[in-house]
């Protein structure tokens, strides 16, 4: 069971802030492929990966990051703090 979080416009496009998923995905990229097959809203939210960042267990990483032992994956646009 993995927890998936969405922030900013990713959250708005997908329509929820978080969900829990049983997945066999071995990497973030595989998880994204799986999500895109679920529903159009996911497919659209993940259509341009260059506009997205991912954090695995609250650490920024990239899309080929493995998901073994991962508890939390978050997707969001580039950050705009400060």
């Amino acid at each position, binding site marked *: 069971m993995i927890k998936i979080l969405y*922030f900013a416009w990713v959250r708005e496009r997908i329509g929820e802030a978080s969900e829990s998923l049983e997945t066999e995905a071995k990497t973030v990229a595989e998880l994204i492929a799986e999500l895109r097959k679920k529903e159009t809203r996911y497919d659209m939210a993940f259509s341009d990966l260059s506009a997205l960042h991912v954090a695995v267990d*609250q650490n920024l990483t990239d899309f080929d990051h493995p998901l073994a032992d991962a508890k939390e994956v978050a997707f969001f*646009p*580039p*950050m*705009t*703090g*400060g």
Partner: protein
Amino acid sequence: MKISVQTEHFDIGAETNAFIKLQNGVGAVVTFSGIVRELDDSPMTFMEIEHYPGMTEKAIRGIVNNAVKRWSLGDACVIHRYGRLYVREPIMMVATSAPHRLDAFEAAEFLMDYLKSRAPFWKKEVTQKHASWVAAKDRDEDALRRW
């Protein structure tokens, strides 16, 4: 080393004085404050800042630790708000102290560059007509390369 992620308004001057009061043996204090400014085109109703609870403080602490490793600092402070903010309200501030001014300046700029693009905050500008997420700027990503 104060790090605060909060919804509450804060007083930039009072935080600056509180920071300075804690310092000892430093000659230089630099602060940066980010303030909600009016949009160029249409009047902004408010700014909404979203963040990633749990990751945010961790990310900020990592950034501050890197600054402390790299420069000879007395102390550093980061305050960043989230939630609904109105024009002229403070969004965030950083403060650095050091024996010498160059360390205090560079560390403050480093903190700002990383907070801007590596701490999980997202800004949305809400006007009467539109609500739009602030786009990250190429120059903010470029700014990281100088460090």
